[in-house]
């Protein structure tokens, strides 16, 4: 949020600036040339399904994969041609890459030793970082005696102790089970806040991106399809892909003609734009059942209702064969809803997004 306020039209220089950065492997385009700005203090997510090029992008920032086009500028310095050892970035690898022959302490102190940091300072920094990520008691263990969560913290400490200008994290939580993942999310947020650094991470999990990042770049098939704050991306997805990938979304096919959108399922409303097929995107929590006074209203049949604790999930079939999912807390439901019975669904126009194409 903090960066949001300063971002649009702000005068600040981005910390990481990617210009026309792209990578092709032979005929395969892993990352199509793209521009991205990452500002100091950002917790930045590169989000996309596997194979979308997000890890390749991260590796180009870290210097592990040489780009085939464009430049990487960090802190005003062009680092495109520099190897990872010469960049002010450090990486937390997926699978961690801990040195199996060194203890935790040796792993963490390794980079400082290479940088010729004096012994006393090195010890102090290693101790402090181990305290920060809460692994002080593991100092003399070897990596094969660590649990997944512990190894994750060691990898994090090993990178953080270098005080990188930018910390890169490749699927940092993917290998952990659900409970640990939630816990580590909290940890990462706490650490980010306490040291105030710039973190860039790759993930395929939209929940993780929403929970951690203040900026998200959504990638699809080597392209960055939308970039913005989590709220922006959730509320105003630019494409069907983004709306489907970030959270759950209902998508209804329709067509625009002469400034009026007509849905296949029945309803119609005014909307400016070029003639052609469109999709109407609406989030399940914005859909109301039995709505009489809604801006957009459709008739269907209740197929299924599942009580999920915080809310109930309803599945409604429309005459077109399309389905609408509605999430509703119990209080809002009309009495007398029955599976198999006809039901009306509706939502406010403010809650829907219209994207081109179907």
């Amino acid at each position: 949020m903090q960066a949001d306020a300063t971002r649009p039209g702000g005068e600040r220089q981005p910390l990481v600036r990617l210009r026309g950065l792209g990578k092709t492997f032979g005929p395969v385009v892993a990352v199509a040339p793209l521009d991205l700005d990452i500002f100091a203090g950002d917790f930045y997510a590169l989000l996309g399904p596997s194979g979308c090029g997000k890890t390749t992008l991260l590796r180009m920032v870290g210097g592990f994969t040489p780009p085939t086009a464009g430049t990487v500028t960090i802190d005003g310095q062009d680092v495109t041609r520099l190897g990872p050892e010469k960049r002010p970035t450090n990486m937390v690898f997926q699978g961690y890459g801990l040195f199996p022959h060194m203890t935790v302490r040796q792993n963490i102190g390794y980079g400082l030793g290479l940088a010729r940091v004096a012994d006393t300072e090195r010890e102090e920094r290693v101790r402090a970082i181990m305290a920060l990520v809460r692994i002080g008691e593991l100092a003399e263990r070897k990596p094969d005696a660590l649990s997944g969560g512990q190894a994750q913290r060691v990898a994090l400490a090993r990178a953080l102790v270098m005080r990188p200008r930018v910390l890169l994290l490749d699927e940092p939580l993917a290998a952990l089970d659900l409970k640990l993942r939630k816990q580590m999310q909290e940890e990462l947020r706490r650490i980010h806040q306490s040291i105030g650094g710039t973190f860039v991470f790759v993930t395929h999990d939209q929940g993780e991106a929403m929970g951690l990042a203040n900026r998200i770049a959504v990638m699809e098939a080597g392209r960055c399809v939308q970039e913005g704050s989590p709220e922006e991306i959730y509320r105003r997805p630019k494409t069907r892909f983004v709306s489907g990938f970030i959270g759950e979304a209902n998508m209804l096919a329709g067509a625009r003609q002469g400034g009026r959108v007509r849905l296949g399922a029945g309803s119609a409303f005014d909307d400016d734009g070029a003639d052609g097929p469109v999709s109407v995107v609406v989030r399940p929590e914005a859909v109301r059942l039995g709505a009489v006074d809604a801006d957009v209203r459709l008739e269907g049949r209740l197929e299924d209702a599942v009580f999920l604790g915080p809310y109930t999930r309803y599945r409604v079939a429309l005459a077109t064969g399309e389905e609408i999912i509605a999430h509703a807390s119990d209080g809002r439901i009309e009495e007398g809803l029955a599976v198999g019975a006809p039901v009306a669904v509706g939502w406010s126009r403010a809650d829907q997004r219209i994207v081109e194409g179907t």
Partner: protein
Amino acid sequence: METLRRHAMLGPAAAVLGLLFVAPFAFLFVVSFWRVRTFKLSPDFILDNYVDTFDKYGGSLLFTVAVAATIATLTTTLAFGFGYVIRFKAGRSGNALLMVTLITLFGGYLVKIYAWKTILGTEGILNSALLALGLVAEPLTIFIYNPGAVVVTLTHFLLPLAVLPVYASLRGVRDITLEAARDLGARPARVFLDVILPQCLPGVSAAFAFCFLISAGDYVTPRYVGGPYTSMIGDFIEGQFSLKFDWPSGAAMSFTVLAACLLAVLAARALLGLARPR
């Protein structure tokens, strides 16, 4: 019941090890304290055989250890370099290189020694090739019947056997640990010294120990291409059994050379250990 059957399945292998390896060795150790009277073994408890080993064959023992150390060092170094090429430099042809290693693994111990004799001999392949090319006027005698020929021959024999454990340990080095080291500021030479080499130490020291023991105990190669001045201990041990029938001496010499090898290997390992990172 299950456990019992499982242990029973280990039985035959344990029997082979116990009856055909442990028992003969224990017995050989006992015999090394016996004496020989008029070509007959007689039980005793004397240390003479060991004292004799040092007195008569001390020089040969030292020489053997020196030659074995040379061979083990050379072979392990070459094996590591070759394993390194297969793992990091050869790309797709790495598999082909590995195949070459595997097919030459058991390709005739005696045949290999014989091959080197025909290559290095005065009337051998190398000399005839040099003559035919006009590079020398007369056959050179420096190729064979010296410790160098033994080193070359045994290195050739042991190389594929050393490549396998070394390569296995190199294959265990994950690429990601190399990237992590570079990310933390290590140049390629440091990555090699700090990350690759230490992770390979088990494989390297196994290969080294193996080469050391096998070359220290070999007698066919020195006898065949080593010439009269390459008097390795294995040659004398074999002599105690095939010519002199002095088994207790042969036994004592065997255990002495094994002990010497053990010491040398431990020393080498300690030396390697010193080179490890902080």
